[in-house]
């Protein structure tokens, strides 16, 4: 391999980890849940992988946090801001890379990060989640 192409290839390889967006496909929240409850095959297949999900930001539980709830429809009241109950199939917990400015609950966003499954109780808020996007960033759709 000649020196130039080697350098170009390694530069490209170095750049890769910063790209969070997956294969460009934007999923819907409902893609991750099976009808009648439970996780879909897609959710299990994408566990631990980068995903991009369209949705809305529910009004945050507290200010200045690195956490919000992603909802499939605009919801003005944080759906499910209790610490327990059945995990509904219309939300996902999002843990962001950095602190963010709150977006209006009815402005569509796309959130990208790593899909994480399984029960996890947030130490700060006590919020129990079953599906999360971690290390997330988002942008207006």
């Amino acid at each position, binding site marked *: 391999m000649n020196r130039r192409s080697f350098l170009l290839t390694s530069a490209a390889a170095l750049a890769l980890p910063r790209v969070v967006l997956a294969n460009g496909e934007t999923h*819907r929240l409902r893609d991750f849940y099976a009808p009648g409850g439970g996780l879909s095959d897609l959710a299990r297949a994408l566990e631990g992988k980068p995903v991009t999900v369209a949705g809305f930001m529910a009004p945050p539980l507290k200010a200045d946090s690195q956490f919000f709830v992603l909802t499939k*429809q605009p*919801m*003005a009241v944080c759906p499910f801001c209790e610490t327990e109950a*059945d995990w509904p199939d219309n939300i996902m917990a999002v843990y962001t890379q950095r602190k963010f400015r709150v977006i*209006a*609950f*009815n402005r569509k966003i796309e959130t990208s990060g790593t899909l994480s499954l399984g029960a996890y109780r947030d130490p700060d808020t006590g919020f129990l989640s079953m599906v999360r996007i971690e290390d997330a960033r988002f942008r207006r759709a």
Partner: protein
Amino acid sequence: MKHIATSVLALAVASAAVADGHGNSLPQADNEWFTSAQAEIQAQLAKRDNTNRALNIILMISDGNGVGTNYASRLFAGQQEGGFGDEYVQPHEAFPNLALVKTYNANAQTPDSAGTGTAMMSGIKTKAGIVGVNQNVNRGDCSTIKGNTVETFNEIMSEMGKATGIVSTARITHATPASAYAKSVDRNFEASVPEGCDAQKDIATQLIDAMEAGVIDVAMGGGRRNFHGSDIIGEEGGKGRRAEGENLIARATDELGAHYAWNLESFNAAPMDGSKPVLGLFHGSHMQYEADRGDEPSLADMTAAAIKMLEAKGGDNGFFLQVEAGRVDHANHGGNLARVVRDQKAMADAVAIADELTDDADTLIIVTADHEHALAFNGYCGRGSDILGLCYKIDGNGIAHSDELEIASDGKPYTVAGYLNGPGSVLIEQVGGEYFGSRPNVSQEEATDIDYLQQAAIPKSSETHSGEDVAVYAKGPFAHLFDGTIEQNVVFHVMHHAATAE
């Protein structure tokens, strides 16, 4: 369908009858619209008042299903069957009797489900937000309840020896079903009353008290969390809303011998012979929307089961049943027409099954709404424009809509339906707190998505009710007492007259 049989029969009589001023037959005499209308005239002429005493009465309330919401649901159901939708007839729309209903509460131009529920179930208008009490009560103030409670239709029918029941897809302690058994200065006292309030019990306790007293024999809906304490985890993992240690479900099963159902399996296992009271609590809070329903019985399932149970229990004395489609209203509040129309379709299915299981001769069936919402419709859309989708232009050379979209002044298309206010508002809160925005350019695919919120004008976290009239449809004994434009509390009076007529 009964309607078509009547029209075919009537055709033979009809076509000869209509002539012009000179006695010649009209050029439009063979037009389908013309002949159908002629058949309708014959059907109307053949109507006879039913003055039998009503053995059974079924009051079916589609919460939030005013004339507009009902219209959207008609088109949806018709389009699901492959038609244009406009010509479709929902089961209640074939009932012979109809009136327009004025829904305002004593202190509210725009009513809520509690004041309207009390009007229908107790025969008086009262303030918004309160159940089973008259307008002298101040909302939330326990000290004003004494001397101001009213009897409910379930209580009156039970005293007459009838079996009674309530079915709802909302929490069974929510305003509409609560108006069947509870007396509360606030509709929100579902699982507890404020400290210091001794003059009344919470609504869930009042339900179990009513079941103990034999006033209510069957109660099915959502709201399980209002029946057990926070220390007890419900069947589907939810925490209770009551004080620790309290368990009204255990009281119902252990002390009243009730059958308790919480999912399809336990629902299907419920006794149908009236031998036990039946308490169904199928979700921690409201039951799921029909569009999302999983391990829960449908409204039609619950209605059919309740009718059979109450028939068995009531025997020769008959029964009274209140059925509520509780979540047409919730989907409207959410600005999500796709779920509105599907829940109303579930109600229509419940109406059909109630009709099928009972006899017009002795059963009065009333289908109505408690109030309308802020839903409205745009034009000028051609036939077959998806009621959930974009407004396509009328085709002057055909019947079905053209392929061209109607475009607004901003150069973008628009949906047939929209809301005046709600979470679908195109005015979005900006950084700094101001609200502005422009209409998104929506595609047909987006607009017909199940989660889509139709565009709205005024931003509100929850879309509002409206004070417009709703319709009441009725068939059976004394259904003809519904006519003209009536106050909503008259609904009670028709039921009472039908049940007590000589």
